[in-house]
């Protein structure tokens, strides 16, 4: 798992790092600050660490959520395997059969998940022995990063809007329009290498921004709830893409099915490592954009305004911040980010438009944003985790015959547990964390 192995108990150094972000969603990492500090001043670091380890802080809840999700996934794997299930019919007579069969099945599946996502030990020994190239060693990581890159963008799009008090369910539609405009710019304009890629990426961002502008404007001008409008725009975008693909000039004349012409090679995101590995410039862009969003959110004037609006729109209005302007700008930015995610998808891996080109990156982005607690670097790590699950899921499917859908189940379960920290807390009898505010949701309905 590519989660932060950060210790839950941290000193003042970490506190200052997390300081400016504490407006909308608190870094629920327990700190040694606060009114009750005096009583525990004499505790050693180790005692403090152990005390906080089993408390309901962000890191513990996140890790336990993943464990729970994987355990439920394991139960599903066992329940859906008739051979193993048969050993349970005589479990009272010979329990070892049932347990060993289940263990073999599940451990093999999850081992493949790991080998497909991080590294395959066999490939490493093979490389050291000179039996295979270095590519096989890095192939799993390459896949993980490839799947993670678009999710970083869509996750940031949801997280950014969330911090401003807007619930951007529309990342999917914005990403779809992003794939559309980026791909069209990618095969229509005859531009030199370099410029073409930038133009295509910008086109993707612009398309997404336009699709984000609509709900932003409707929210600001008419009060139409962004959840409803963005859900409707998601499906409108999908249908629109389906129509555009079939139009002359876009549709690949050599194919009878609904597929567009391929993006020119000058507009494709170049591979980072070469050697047949798919990881491309998209993940580097994702890091750059994460830095940018973190700066925007925590250091810029607009970031302050949007956090103020997100925390309390009435107070922000009283303080002279234009709430409507913030909403529109915020949705344009979120749409632009999602559009970039779609552009990364089509310019980086897919290279042609199909009706499913955007996959599920928008809705996955929503989960990623929640898992990352709507903080930029949290979103980045969450996207890496989801990318890893997806990459590993591919191997699990082909090697263990466990459907990729299990990954969807595990991802959904992780987020359910993350969103209901009280549930996890009750299940594991966790201590209440000091200074912890485990609320990812805004709960304001429509």
């Amino acid at each position, binding site marked *: 798992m590519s989660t932060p192995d950060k210790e839950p108990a941290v000193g003042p150094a970490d506190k200052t790092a997390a300081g400016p972000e504490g407006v909308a969603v608190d870094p629920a990492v327990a700190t040694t600050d606060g009114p009750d500090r005096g009583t525990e001043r004499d505790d050693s670091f180790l005692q403090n660490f152990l005390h906080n380890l089993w408390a309901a802080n962000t890191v513990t809840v996140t890790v336990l959520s993943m464990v729970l999700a994987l355990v439920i996934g394991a139960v*599903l794997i066992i329940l*859906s*395997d008739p051979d193993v299930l048969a050993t349970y019919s005589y479990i009272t007579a010979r329990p070892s059969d049932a347990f060993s069969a289940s263990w073999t099945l599940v451990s093999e599946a999850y081992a493949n998940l790991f080998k497909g996502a991080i590294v395959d030990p066999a490939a490493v020994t093979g490389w050291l022995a000179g039996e295979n190239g270095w590519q096989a060693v890095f192939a799993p990581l390459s896949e993980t990063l490839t799947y993670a890159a678009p999710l970083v963008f869509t996750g940031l799009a949801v997280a950014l809007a969330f911090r401003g008090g807007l*619930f951007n*369910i529309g990342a999917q539609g914005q990403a779809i329009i992003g794939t559309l405009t980026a791909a069209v710019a990618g095969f229509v304009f005859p531009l030199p290498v370099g410029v073409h890629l930038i133009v295509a990426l910008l086109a993707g961002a612009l398309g997404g921004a336009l699709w984000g502008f609509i709900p932003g404007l*409707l929210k*600001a*001008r*008419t*009060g*139409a*709830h962004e*959840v*409803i*409008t963005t*859900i*409707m*725009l*998601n*499906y*409108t975008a999908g*249908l*629109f893409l*389906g*129509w555009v693909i079939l139009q002359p000039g876009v549709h690949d004349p050599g194919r009878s099915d609904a597929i567009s012409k391929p993006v020119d090679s000058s507009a494709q995101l170049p591979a980072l490592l070469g050697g047949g590995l798919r990881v491309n410039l998209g993940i580097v862009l994702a890091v750059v954009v994460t830095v940018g969003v973190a700066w925007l959110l925590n250091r810029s004037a607009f970031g302050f305004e949007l956090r103020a609006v997100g925390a309390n*729109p*009435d107070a922000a209005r009283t303080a002279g911040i234009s*709430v*409507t302007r913030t909403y529109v700008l915020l949705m344009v930015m979120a749409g632009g980010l999602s559009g970039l995610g779609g552009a990364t998808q089509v310019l980086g891996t897919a290279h042609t438009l199909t009706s499913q080109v955007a996959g599920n990156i928008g*809705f996955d982005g*929503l*989960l990623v944003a*929640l898992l990352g607690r709507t903080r930029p670097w949290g979103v980045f790590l969450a996207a890496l985790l989801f990318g890893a699950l997806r990459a590993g899921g591919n191997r699990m499917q082909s090697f263990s015959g*466990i*459907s990729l*859908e*299990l*990954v*969807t*189940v*595990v*991802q*959904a*379960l992780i*987020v*359910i547990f993350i*969103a*209901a920290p*009280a*549930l996890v807390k009750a299940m594991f009898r966790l201590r209440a964390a000091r200074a912890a505010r485990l609320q*990812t*949701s*805004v*709960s*304001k*309905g*429509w």
Partner: protein
Amino acid sequence: MSTVTVEDLADVVAPRRFWTRERKTGAVFVALGVLAAALFGALAPAETARFTLSEDASGAALKINGQFGAILFGIATVGAGAALLAGVARRWTSWLLGLGILAFVLSFLCWQVAGKFMPLVDTAEGSLELALPLILGALAGVLCERSGVVNVAIEGQFLMGAFGAALVGTMAASVWVGLISAVIGGVIIALLLAVLAMRYLVDQVVLGIVLNLLALGLTGFLYERLMQPQAATYNEPPRMPTWRIPGLADIPVVGPVLFDTNPLVYLALILVVVISFGLARTRWGLRTRAVGEHPTAADTVGIRVKGTRYLNVLLGGVVAGAGGAFFTLVSTGSFNKNMTSGAGFIALAALIFGRWTPVGAFFAALFFGFANKLATYLSAIGSPVPSQFLNMLPYLATLVAVAGLVGRVRAPAADGKPFIKG
């Protein structure tokens, strides 16, 4: 709506402006009517459009010259818009709205059908069939949301219902056992929704989306592990029979559509009436509305807020699960991965477009079903109008309605807000 908007404020300052909502709608209708009369009239060939009263080209038919019809109905739309612009009494507004939309659709049809034929019975049957899950899904939404719980998980309830019906229906070789397990499938998602939203205070929109993904993954996983390898044992449910009501089924056009059809249609029609009556006239309905609009007040007079909400969310699960059974027991006869493909969200759109009322949701669902059917019909006759745009209609209509461009939609005041006692 949770935020004060510019328009709300403006309403307070200037309550009687000339451009009321009705007048704006009227202006839009006039523009649409002129467009219809000019554009559709110009494009339509001067040939006869036949609307046959049967399932095919045969039999009696309503005939009209396509060009003449397109212009005539376009002018009718203008008339409805002009009446709204002139400012008629409030009670006529919704009638004029309906008339305007109907005339516009007819104008469009005259253009498309000119020189061809449109089988009315087939169209009506198809519309109703496509609308059926939407009606049930939207009714499930009404039950949940009128009590104050946002239900975005209709899609997930559909999927679980469809899956349960296929799996258990095949194993038990019975349609009715299948229907019951579809209901159980819907209730499982509803139970998760209720417990996590009310006990663990998870944001209900987030929860709905995540539950949809959970249902998608779960049914997809089990489909690939169980159903795909052994379709005969797990994925060949018996189909729902059609029930013919003697006498009524012999009425032309209406008879075969409404009274010679599958039991889910009767269920849906009965539920529309029952829920509509129940919400307006019974103790349960009053409590539901009270809990959805002002839970604190309801709590003060001794209504059990959470109990009412639990009941309604679970009832919603029952209805949506039955709607899911449509996909496997009526429509296709086997389960497939993600087979509902967004129908739950169209049901949500119908719920919103129908202003959170059972009857409104019913008509909205019918309208969306008709738009879908029309898209299939138009692509079959080789119309230049792309089917994707007609399929967008439910979403765009809802967008327009929510933005307050036509009429006004308002969610129950406490919709989506968890109730914390004390």
